[in-house]
């Protein structure tokens, strides 16, 4: 199946930037967001006065603060927060806004000081709150039990092993693949090669997940620019098309959830259908790798293999550069960076791959890249967003 290609009026990604810093105690989150916005515009050859749309996730008022920091006055704003995939959702909303004529140049930016703030995303629970507008009432049913984020993901791995005989060695192959790509990325936080045995020998965090099954925590930021095709025609970059998108939510299903099924099962087919392609047409994937099990579940959910076959699918170097389906060419959250909301980096790397500018970690002849973000708790409530990008 060949993809239908972008319609001539479709929005394009014209600029992309990932901040090179990983540990930056002197930076604020706003500075990261601002520097990334500027650099992504520079990449496109656009100027601040060209911008009429702004997307920032994090605090629900984040766009207001970033706009103030940059003294920007956008006429289209977006602050949707669904955890890690938020920037992917922003791209789909920005595309729709450009398509509808309500924005022409949208900057999607993100910054965070997660590492310097000592945010322990994976080993703390989500706090209960008494916020009168809060939606966290159900957290009271988890909070007394010390259900750290890593354990929420670990239980999916535990159940997957029980139902399908999946092994820790197979999960470890995902971490090894990401590290092999990080070795080719001079900005990545961890670049020394690792083996399956290294993953198994690292200390346990929440069984069956060990330290090297878990993403790093870094500072950092990134940005992309989505623009009308008329604008794209004048940009200095080769534009990248948004071929399709899909969104989904998953949750406890009132106590009757089968936790091996993830939101990607809904968002993936929606995105593939919109793009008019099948999984065989995808040249590479950028998958939110909060934990190794996240990648395995995502690959199954997206339809690259059957549910339950993920363990054997990820073995044998398939996910590494040169394999059938290279993933996370920047090294992923498992090795390169994770300042939260990693969806932005999936977009940045996919865009650069589709512009054929990734040097030693370039996927040869990359024409179609699939980005998928998972936010929240894989074993319970989580969000999923799939965005399929195409080279022009």
């Amino acid at each position: 199946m060949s993809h239908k290609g972008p319609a001539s009026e479709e929005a394009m990604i014209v600029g992309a930037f990932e901040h090179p810093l990983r540990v930056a105690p002197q930076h604020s989150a706003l500075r990261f967001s601002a520097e990334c916005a500027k650099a992504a515009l520079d990449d496109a050859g656009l100027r601040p006065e060209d911008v009429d749309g702004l997307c920032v996730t994090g605090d629900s008022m984040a766009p207001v603060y970033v706009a103030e920091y940059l003294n920007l006055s956008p006429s289209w704003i977006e602050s949707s927060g669904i955890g890690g995939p938020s920037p992917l959702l922003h791209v789909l909303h920005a595309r729709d806004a450009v398509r509808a004529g309500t924005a022409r140049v949208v900057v999607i930016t993100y910054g965070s000081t997660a590492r310097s703030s000592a945010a322990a995303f994976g080993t703390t629970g989500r706090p209960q709150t008494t916020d009168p507008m809060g939606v966290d009432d159900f957290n009271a049913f988890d909070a007394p039990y010390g259900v750290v984020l890593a354990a929420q993901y670990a239980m999916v791995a535990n159940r997957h092993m029980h139902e399908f005989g999946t092994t820790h060695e197979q999960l470890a192959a995902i971490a090894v693949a990401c590290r092999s790509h990080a070795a080719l990325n001079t900005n990545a936080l961890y670049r020394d090669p690792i083996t399956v045995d290294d993953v198994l020998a690292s200390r346990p965090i929440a069984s069956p997940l060990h330290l090297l099954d878990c993403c790093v925590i870094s500072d950092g930021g990134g940005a992309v620019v989505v623009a009308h095709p008329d604008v794209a025609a004048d940009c200095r970059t080769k534009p990248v098309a948004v071929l399709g998108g899909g969104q989904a939510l998953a949750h406890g299903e009132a106590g009757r959830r089968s936790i091996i099924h993830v939101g990607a099962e809904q968002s993936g087919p929606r995105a593939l259908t919109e793009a008019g392609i099948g999984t065989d047409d995808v040249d590479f994937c950028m998958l939110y790798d909060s934990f190794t099990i996240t990648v395995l579940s995502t690959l199954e959910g997206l339809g690259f293999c059957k549910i339950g076959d993920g363990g054997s699918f990820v073995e044998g170097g398939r996910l590494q550069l040169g394999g059938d389906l290279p993933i996370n060419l920047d090294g992923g959250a498992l090795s390169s960076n994770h300042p939260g909301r990693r969806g932005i980096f999936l977009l940045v790397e996919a865009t650069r791959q589709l512009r054929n500018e990734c040097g030693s970690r370039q996927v040869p002849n990359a024409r179609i890249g699939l980005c998928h973000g998972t936010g929240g708790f894989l074993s319970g409530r989580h969000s999923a967003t799939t965005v399929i990008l195409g080279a022009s």
Partner: protein
Amino acid sequence: MELASMPERPGPIVTPETAEYWAAGHRGVLLIGSCEICGHIFFPPRAVCPRCWESGAGCTASGGRGSVYAFSVVHQNRNPGFRDNLPYVVALVELEEGVQLMTNLVDCDPNEVRVAMPVGVVFQPLDDKVSIPLFRPVTP
């Protein structure tokens, strides 16, 4: 991990909608959601039925027995109440009534926990109003 070995663990924030659930625990009763309109059984309990969307959904007492659906042995948690009690077992338990709930497994060696292991409820009082359900291995 011994029962009542985590006295500093955070208690739940009790709201008017969930007060009955936590108070029942203090009487040694595990409640699950039960819709008086359509008969749906669900968890966690809530005021609006997640099947028919009618308000006024109630609760019914669970028999308190089930099996381990999935679990994780937690080795890192720096929060008070947990950091001095590592490792401990977090589990999704599937009750015989067909619904899952999050809990800790107690009175067992974390290395001996298995999926599908039969378990039964016990309650740990956190204060004079709230007791939380925990589970421990039972003979089938």
